[in-house]
């Protein structure tokens, strides 16, 4: 489990990235992050929902209620054009950090492609 600060800093780019592959809802986002990180990133509700709401307010993502077949209501989030632009910036910031660390620690990063 990563430290609180790192989690805090990484939540937004991760959410935006997940949503950039398609719209999604809270619980599924948490599950997807858990799977991708092989269980290393296990988010709880307090980490996710306030951030989703804030991003919604900032206009980076939008939210929409859907009624499921069984009658339950579910709130879906989708990334906006503005969100995609922000993601490009975030991605660049992280790549810069990772490249620097990679050089310092002499690691080979896979999938390094800007």
């Amino acid at each position, binding site marked *: 489990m990563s430290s609180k600060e790192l989690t805090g800093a990484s939540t937004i780019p991760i959410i935006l990235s997940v949503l950039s592959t398609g719209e999604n*809802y*809270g*619980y*599924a986002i948490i599950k997807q992050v858990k799977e991708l990180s092989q269980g290393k990133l296990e988010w*709880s*509700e*307090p980490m996710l*929902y*306030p951030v989703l*709401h*804030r991003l919604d307010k900032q206009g980076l993502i939008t939210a929409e209620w859907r009624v499921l077949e069984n009658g*339950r*209501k*579910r*709130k879906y989030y989708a990334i906006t054009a503005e969100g995609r632009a922000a993601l490009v910036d975030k991605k660049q910031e992280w790549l810069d950090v990772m490249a620097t660390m990679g050089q310092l620690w002499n690691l080979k990063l896979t999938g390094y492609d800007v």
Partner: protein
Amino acid sequence: MFDLDAAIRQWRRSLRSQPAFEDGDIEELEDHFRSKIDELLNEGLSPKKAFDQVIKEDYPNLELLDRQFNDERKLKSTAFSMFRNFIKVGLRSIQKHRTYSTINIVGLTVGFACVFGIIIYLQQELSYDQYHENGKDIYRANLHFIRASGEIHYPIIPPAFGPEIKSNLAEIKAATRLRYAYPIIMRHEQQSFFEQRVFFAENEFLQMFSFPLLQGNVDDVLKAPNTIVITEEMSKKYFGEVSPMGQIINYNNEIDLQVVGILKDIPINSHLDFDFLISFNTFKVGPGGLEPLTSWRWLGFLTYLQLHEGANLADVTQKATDLFMANNNSASNRKVDVELQPLNNIYLGSGDISNPMGGLFRINDAENLKSLAIVAVLIIVIAFFNYFNILAALMYTRTKEIGVRKILGSSRLRIVKQMLVETCLVVIISGVLSLGLVWLVSGLGYLPAMSSQAIVWVLLLMLGLCLSFGMINGLYLGTSLASQGILSLLRNNLVVKNARFSLRKVVLLVQYGISAALIMISFIVVNQLSYWNKKDLGYDQEGIMVAGFRGDDVQNKKEAFRNVLNGNSMVSSITFGPALDGSASGSPLRPKEWPEEEVVQTAYFGVDYDFDKVIGLEVLEGRFFDRAIASDSVNAILINETLAERLDLENPIGKRVEFAGMADAMIIGIFKDFHHQSLHHEIAPMALEMWLGPPRNVLVKFNAGVDMTQAIRSVATNWQEAFPDGDFPLEYKMLTEQISGLYSQEQDFATLLRVFTGLAIFVAILGMYGFSAVSAHLKIKQICIRRVLGAELNQVAKVVSKDFLLLSFLASLLAVPVVYWLMDQWLNRFAYRAPVGPEYFVIAIVLVTVITALTLAIQVRKVMQVRPARLLRNE
């Protein structure tokens, strides 16, 4: 069996008590929560295990989430967010106590709506004639006769008065006369209508009053003879979209009048109501008229004066009286004053002033308005007490919630604030709903349209009511809850003073008392009305049709029509004569044997042969007019008992008198008194003379037992035969309708009173229902224990209803003397009042008690349905 859905609902409810969660947040979390459970269920866990596991994992998360949400929102102003929280919790509490909230809101809404409705009505009534620019300087000249028989204020005065006072007194800026036209036929080309609101007016009239002209020049309209000004509505009626200016309207098949102006429609709040103004110099005294237009004796003209600013009213009044006495030679023997009645006072201040022609101008009784205002106040009191009572009772069901809040560190102030916001919310919701209701009702036409002034009044009042209702109740509730100890709150052991005279009992007493009083009052008012309708007027009203008989050459058509109707098998008799609408002519009467200056002012009808048969007039001495005796049509009169008594002549039959333009009339009979006026007035001296001039009305008496609809249809057919060209429409009323029209003011008042009483009682019942429900709920444990111990229905009923029945009975009793005194005052204003028997009071008391008992019965039934074992097990 574990009910997953129920468990989730409960979990969800627990979230609602966290102020930071918005409704949307809770739904999102619920979905999250359910998704997690679904997953565990898929893994094969039982619903209970899955639920428990998720709860355990999630509990710390939720708390954190709550804080996070709160932090997010803290960024905004804290005072605002606190206020928002209050409102949110308040709305949720309204939802939680749904039944009581509904009772409160419905009760307050109806109460407020009544009050707003009354205010809008009162506002209209008080706004009469207030819009005339010169209004404060305009007076109507009335004559005040003081006679042995009583005082009479007369608003129509001689035609010479206006011009003379204008030229004689420097204080008079302008004077203008109005002469009413009897209902007549107006015709434009092929269209003709029967018109009732027609005046002859001078140019000064439109200069003095602010009745705006849409077309035409206010400086010179109505100056030329044979010109007419019409209202917009009449312009549409006669000319459609075509401009009426310069067009011709024919007056009564006599005169062609040229339209020279269009008036904006006369507003409802004007004591003068007219559709047509014909130039005054068109008015001619017809052949056989008694007096010229320079007369000082002919009471037939409304006269309005405009004084110069700063003129001394008392001074002018004295000078006007002097002028009148100097010119009216017949006045030397009696006391006559000229009175100047301010324009603003005419509509509500004309109670003592006779209103000729069955209502020449609009008036209302200020007393009725006062009564309505009192009813409004009573309704406010009921609505307030209701709300107070239910809230105070509900307080006991909210102790746990408050106790928990206190443990969580809520300060007293915070609790008081919360209660304040809650009560204000309920009151404001009701206020807004009631405004909507009033708007709707007024849109449907059951209330006067809201003027901008009324809207301001209503909004101000609503604000005041909301603030005071919300504040008082909220403060009371908040402080009394906040002052209780935490332990007693949690144990639900409030320190309840069960004193013999608790505040709540007094409140209930007042409420019951007001409801009972309102019921009694409406009974008595309705009783008086039906008394008027039923009282023997001294003549027949049933089966008599009154139709206007006017138009071209009526004199000649009269006999033809009489002959046609005499052939109608449904008609028993027919006569031409007065409309019996409360109006009559008046003239001094002097027996020849009396000294020169002594007279009796006498009302009279000009009648035709058979008048006695049609209305069933009883001639006590002498005889009625007879076709066979020629002199009857020249100089014979009949007098009523009252006049005979007043004259006190020995052998009155055959005595000679001066009367109504006849220098030498003979009394040929004495008839039994009948009420030619409404029963507001006592029977006055009265006489009948033969009138052979053009008739104004025809009265048709049908045979007893005929079908009225058919009978009227047959007369309509006869009418067609007599007047085939159709320019003389049949306009009729049944005499019974005409007579009940004389009480329209009281009828309107009674209707209003009944509606508002009904609503007030509805509000009171609601409150009683709510209050008894809460108190039954509070006693539920006691009742269950009693039932376990074998108590029967009647004992349970006793526990539930003990206080209420006694209180309602006592309250109704207390209301009796108050109502009796009030209604005595009201009834004393009428000459003929119905006796007020004890039955109305008894019925009202029984009614209140029965309603109370029924409300309680519902509660008892509810309480009996609770299974004691189940309830007690929970404890």
